[in-house]
C-alpha cells in the first residue's frame, strides 16, 4: 500500500502535509533569506553592470518559477484527467495565482533592470513578450475556474485548457522569435551545455535564491491546496445538509 497515489485521498493528504508545513516554512524562509542577503550585500558589483546586476537574485528565480508553476499545473491537470484524483485538480487550481505572482515579479524586476541596461522599462523582446502571453494564459485559466460552478466540470475543462494552452504557449514562444530580435541576454545557466556564464561568486548565492523560490513555491502551493481542500469539504457538508 506504499503507493504515491494514496496521498490523492484528501484526508490522507491533509494528515501528511500538516506535519511538513512548519519545517517547510522555516526552510524556505531561511534559504531565501540566505540567498537574497548574500546576493545583495556580500557579492561584488559587476564590472559592467554595477550593482544593478544584483536584481538577478529576484529576477532569475521568479522567472524560472513562473514557468515551472505552469508546468506543475500541466502535470497536475494530466493526473486529474487520467486518474481523476481530486487533490491533483485542486493543486493545479492553487498553483495558478502563485504562478501569476511569480510572473509579475519577474516582469517588474525585469523592468527595473531593463531601465539602466537597455534604457527602457519594456520592450517587445521575445522573452518579455512570452511572459506577457504567459500572464494572459494564467488569467484565462483562473477565469475559467471561477466561471464554472460544477467543480468536477471546472477541473475537467481547466485541465483541457492547460493542456492546449501549453502547446500554444510553446508555439507562441517560437513564433515571437521570428517576429522580433531580442534585447534580452541569453540564459545565464544553460542546462544543456552546462557552461556557466556566471562566476561562482554570483552563482552560489543565486543557487540559494533559486532553491528558496522553489521551496517557497512548494510551501505556498501546499498551503493553498490545503485551504482549497477545506473549502471543498465545507461545500460538501453544506450540500449534504440541504
Amino acid at each position, binding site marked *: 500500500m506504499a503507493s504515491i497515489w494514496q496521498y490523492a485521498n484528501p484526508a490522507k493528504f491533509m494528515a501528511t502535509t500538516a506535519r511538513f508545513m512548519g519545517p517547510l516554512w522555516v526552510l524556505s524562509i531561511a534559504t531565501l533569506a540566505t540567498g537574497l542577503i548574500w546576493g545583495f550585500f556580500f557579492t561584488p558589483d559587476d564590472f559592467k553592470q554595477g550593482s544593478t546586476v544584483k536584481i538577478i537574485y529576484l529576477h532569475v528565480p521568479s522567472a524560472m518559477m513562473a514557468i515551472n508553476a505552469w508546468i506543475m499545473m500541466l502535470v497536475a491537470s494530466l493526473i486529474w484527467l487520467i486518474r481523476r484524483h481530486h487533490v491533483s485538480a485542486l493543486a493545479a487550481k492553487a498553483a495558478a495565482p502563485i504562478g501569476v505572482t511569480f510572473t509579475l515579479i519577474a516582469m517588474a524586476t525585469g523592468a527595473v533592470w531593463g531601465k539602466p541596461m537597455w534604457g527602457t522599462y519594456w520592450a517587445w523582446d521575445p522573452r518579455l513578450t512570452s511572459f506577457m502571453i504567459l500572464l494572459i494564459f494564467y*488569467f484565462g485559466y483562473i*477565469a*475559467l475556474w471561477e*466561471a464554472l460552478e460544477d467543480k468536477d466540470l471546472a477541473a*475537467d475543462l481547466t485541465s483541457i*485548457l492547460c*493542456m492546449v*494552452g501549453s502547446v500554444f504557449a510553446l508555439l507562441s514562444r517560437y*513564433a515571437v522569435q*521570428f517576429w522580433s530580435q531580442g534585447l534580452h541576454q541569453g540564459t545565464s545557466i544553460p542546462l544543456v551545455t552546462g557552461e556557466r556564464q556566471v562566476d561562482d561568486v554570483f552563482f552560489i548565492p543565486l543557487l540559494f535564491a533559486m532553491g528558496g523560490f522553489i521551496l517557497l513555491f512548494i510551501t505556498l502551493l501546499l498551503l493553498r491546496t490545503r485551504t482549497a481542500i477545506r473549502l471543498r469539504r465545507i461545500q460538501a457538508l453544506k450540500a449534504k445538509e440541504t
Partner: protein
Amino acid sequence: MWAIIQRDISLAFAQGGGLLLTVAFFLILVVFVPFGIGPAPTLLSKIAPGMLWIGALLATLLSLDRIFQLDFEDGTLDALATAPIPLTGLVTAKALAHWITTGLPLTLAALPLGFLLFLPNGQYMWLFLSLLIGTPALSFIGTFGAALTLSIKRGGLLLSLLVLPLFVPTLLFGVQAIIHPDHTIMLALLAVISLLSAAVLPFVTALALRAGLR
C-alpha cells in the same frame, strides 16, 4: 457531417444568422483605424497588414459563441451528441462550417478593405493567401473555446479571454506572411499552425464538449 455543414451555412444566411454582422463588424473596425491614427496614407499603408489581420481576428471572435450556444439552448446539441455520429466529426463539421461562414467571407472582404488602408499593391496576393491559410486555425481554435464555455451563461467575454492568447501564433505568422521578405516560409509555418489545429483540436474539443453536456 455534410448535413451539419449545409445546415449551418443556411442558418448563417437566414435571418439573424450573423454572417453579415461579422463582415460589417470587420468593415467598421477597419474604418476606425484612420479615425484613431489619422488619415496619412504612408502610415496607414505601413500598418495595413497588421490591422487587417487584427480586424479579421476580432470579427471572428465576435461570432464564436454562436458555434455551439444556439444548438445547446434549443436541445439540438443533445440530440446530435446522442445521434450515431462521432463527436469529433460533429466538432470538425462545426469548425468547417464556421470557417465557411466567417473565415472565408472575411478573407474576401479583406481585399477591398485593404484598399481603404492603402495596402501596398504587391501585398494583396499575400494578404489573401495568408488569411485563406490562417483563418481555418482561428475557426478550429475558436470552436475549442466555444466548447469550453458551453455551459457558462453569458460566457462571451470569458470566451474572448481564453481564445485570444491561443490566436497569438496564428496572428504572428499571418502578418509575417504578408510583410516578411520570405513570404513562402511564413505561409508554410502558418499552414503548419492551421493543419495542427485542424488535426488535433477536434479531439480535445470533443472531450470538452462531452464534459460540458453532462
